[in-house]
């Protein structure tokens, strides 16, 4: 699928020549199959099919941009499926919500890359041969070329040829003799264009390989850590979510430990964030493997756009939120502290969540399940409660408050089904096993009391950060291939390819007659003034002053 302009590769007379007519008689038996396969291969590696595949690739990518994708936004994709009950499931089965991992997408790009290889291999071979070959002989009639000139030159052909060659230092050239003392010079320039072209296309292959290796050997794990907490990487189970590459079994994660000391967010008066900073400490290698040791900690600020890079693995600050804390005094006088990460639900960080007490003190047996307690509600960093409905009006924790609803009864945690940590199972309320109690808006330090004497105090908050560990062993190679791709592209678009031929005939009185023919094979580049200066080489006097204006 590389651009076919074959200046250096073929005899120019064959360019754009129609394929040989009179097809051979159809072969039979195995020969027929070979011919069929060869035909398919030729079709696949033809530029026309490559172009069609290229446009199919663009078209096939389109749903990836227009439809929600599972791997980008699960909630949005699920909503789309609910909103489109007929079309949604069909699209889902066809892979339209996971375009870039769907078999039809893979089929297109694999066919495209096969076509690319099928084109690149012979083309590289041709190029190597052309590099070793001499410039093609001078055509018989130079005046049929797009650029031609004839000039009288002083001196014998030998001297004229020497003069011309002296002015063509940067050209690949060869001198040939024709009968009757005629000399010819064939020269060509611009090989780097084809080099760039080949490098560009080979880089595409390299890039695809680097992406594939990343998909096989890389992984990503995310984890939410509240201030004062930490985690040690080393096993996928540490993470809240873990997305392994196809060949990752999770047993060979590089061990490192991270403690989050504090998190700071700065905002403008208008509430726009200007800085997110997590003060962390980390340690790696043998120090991290020693769980009891206290050595090897390094302090660092982790910020957006400034990941921590530890021996190939990278740690990112991806998100943040609040963890409100409550103190509950149960009827028997026993005091329990609890805090739970809440999930931000809007730009002002109004956060939703639930704190669950599964083993309330003072109860035994079945009574325990009848007296489980849940605090469900919102946390507002800058609380504003017009008419008693609390929302947050700014993301900074200037006036933190909670609006909570209390539930008592069976939270339904024993049936084995998983529950969201940010809410309760509404079915337990509906079937009467969980009783809805009072609700209250509390600022820090304020308390509320339930009917059985339980008091709940909102004691404060901490902040949590969402961290992500990423590992992609091939991303450095992807960068290298991206750079060679760009370099090749620029070479192939800017280098101009030219050919020039001189035929130097002995003239009367010791002079020579020089015919010059030029061919510029580069798309749209033309020869411009360069051809004129090439003609001037044949003259023995200095070239005339530069032509006024641009002839382009």
């Amino acid at each position, binding site marked *: *699928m590389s*651009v*076919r*302009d074959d200046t250096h590769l073929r005899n120019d007379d064959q360019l*754009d020549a129609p394929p040989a007519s009179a097809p051979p008689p159809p072969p039979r038996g195995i020969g027929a199959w070979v011919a069929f396969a060869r035909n398919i291969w030729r079709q696949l590696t033809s*530029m*026309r099919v*490559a*172009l069609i595949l*290229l*446009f199919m*690739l*663009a078209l096939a*990518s*389109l749903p*990836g*941009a*227009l439809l929600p*994708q599972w*791997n*980008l936004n699960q909630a949005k994709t699920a909503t789309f499926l609910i909103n489109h009950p007929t079309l949604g499931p069909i699209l889902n089965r066809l892979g339209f919500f996971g*375009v*870039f991992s769907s078999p039809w997408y893979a089929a297109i790009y694999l066919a495209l890359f096969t076509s690319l290889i099928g084109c690149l291999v012979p083309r590289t071979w041709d190029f190597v041969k052309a590099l070793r070959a001499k410039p093609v002989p001078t055509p018989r009639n130079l005046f049929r070329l797009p650029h031609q000139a004839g000039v009288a030159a002083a001196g014998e052909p030998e001297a004229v040829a020497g003069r011309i060659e002296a002015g063509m230092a940067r050209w690949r050239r060869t001198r040939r003799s024709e009968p009757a003392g005629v000399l010819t010079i064939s020269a060509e320039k611009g090989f780097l264009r084809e080099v760039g072209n080949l490098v560009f296309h080979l880089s595409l292959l390299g890039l695809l390989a680097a*992406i594939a290796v990343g998909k096989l050997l890389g992984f*990503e794990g995310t984890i939410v850590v509240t201030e004062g907490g930490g985690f040690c990487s080393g096993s996928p189970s540490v993470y809240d979510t873990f997305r392994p590459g196809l060949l990752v079994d999770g047993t060979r994660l590089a061990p490192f430990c991270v403690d989050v000391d504090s998190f700071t967010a700065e905002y*403008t008066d*208008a509430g*726009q*964030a*200007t*800085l*997110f900073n997590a003060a962390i400490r980390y340690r790696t290698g043998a120090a991290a493997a020693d769980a009891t040791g206290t050595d090897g900690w390094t302090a660092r600020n982790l*910020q*957006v*756009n*400034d*990941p921590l890079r530890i021996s190939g693995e*990278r740690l*990112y600050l*991806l*998100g*943040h939120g609040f963890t409100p804390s409550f103190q509950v005094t149960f009827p028997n006088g026993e005091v329990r502290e609890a805090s739970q990460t809440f999930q931000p639900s809007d*730009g002002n*960080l109004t956060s939703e969540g639930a704190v669950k007490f599964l083993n309330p003190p003072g109860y035994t047996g079945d009574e325990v399940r009848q007296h489980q307690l849940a605090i469900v509600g919102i946390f507002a960093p800058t609380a504003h409660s017009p008419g008693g409905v609390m929302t947050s009006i700014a993301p900074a924790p200037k006036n933190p408050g909670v609006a909570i609803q209390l539930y008592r009864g069976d939270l339904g945690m024993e049936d084995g089904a998983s529950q969201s940590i940010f809410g309760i199972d509404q079915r337990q309320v509906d079937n009467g096993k969980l009783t809805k109690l009072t609700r209250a808006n509390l600022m820090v330090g304020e308390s509320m009391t339930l009917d059985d004497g339980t008091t709940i105090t909102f004691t404060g908050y901490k902040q949590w950060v969402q961290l*992500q560990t*990423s590992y*992609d062993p091939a*991303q450095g190679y*992807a*960068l290298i291939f*991206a*750079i060679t*791709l*760009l370099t090749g*592209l*620029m070479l192939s*678009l800017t280098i101009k390819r030219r050919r020039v031929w001189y035929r130097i005939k002995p003239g009367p009185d010791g002079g020579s007659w020089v015919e010059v023919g030029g061919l510029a094979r580069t*798309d*749209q580049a033309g020869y411009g003034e360069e051809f004129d200066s090439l003609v001037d080489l044949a003259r023995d006097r200095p070239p005339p002053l530069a032509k006024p204006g641009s002839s*382009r």
Partner: protein
Amino acid sequence: MAINTTLEALSDNGFGAAAAAYTVALICSAVEFSSRRTAATRSAGREYATVGAPGALLTRDGTPGGVPIVPIAGAQAGIGHIGRVGNEPKIPWGERFGKAGLLVTILGFAAHVFSIVTRGMSAGRMPLGNMYEFTSLICATVIGVWLAVKLRQRALGIGVFVLIPVVLLMYVAGAILHTPAAVLQPALNSYWKWIHVTTISISSGILLFSGVASVLYIVRTRWEVRGARPDSVWAKLPEPATLDRIAYRTAILAFPLFTFAVITGALWAEVAWGRYWNWDPKETCAFITWVIYAGYLHARSTAGWRGTKSAWISVVGFASMMFNLFFVNMVISGLHSYAGLN
């Protein structure tokens, strides 16, 4: 960092002045274009004037049956020699409008650059933090490329078609996208941002220009296919070869720049989002655009795909670029909507 509101107001004034100037220039170049003589009739008209038989008229559009503007020989037959033009012919109105339009475009461009620079100074950062700012840069790039091309080819009369999308975008930017200068959110606060967004905007501007040339190429070839009627307004367009060359040369300038911009975007994504490529809608669309332009460059050197087919591919690429700039940002939310943190 505080916002300097004086500079911001100056910047807004500069933007308004640029938008007004481009609008005036659009009208001027529309007059220029509609009164322009076609290449074919221009030479015929010149010949007609020099031959100057008694009673012959130099007509507005160069055809013998057109509206007379200067009676050449008829009025002067008594005082001068037959066949000679007594006075220098006046500069035709179309040409005057063309010159005025070019001058106003240059003034508008200066105001535009001033607006972009003061906007950046007012916020203490590169002026590429939001849709308004980068739409403004795209428009400035289109005008800059147009002026550069015009400098080399003074006779090229496609100003009106270059200015139409620019004026549209300027009004969209000023009326819909405009936001007060502000500091950046942390996700955008990276030096990659400046490299990535500057190159994306400039390459988009150049590709927009290239797209206009390809559209004109299609229109012009269609006019030729349909009989090349000389009285059609499309006869005034430049030769297809010229338009094709402009489209191609600007495309090969923009394509590596766009590639570079996508690569820096990937580098930045690796720093900000944890992965160099996320198939985020914006990235996907940039990939689609890239593939289409790659197809365009290949098609141009493939037998059977040259000419109108290639031009169509370029137009589709241009459309996907515009789609990516506006629709994806404003309708589809993704990582590029900067809704990540907060």
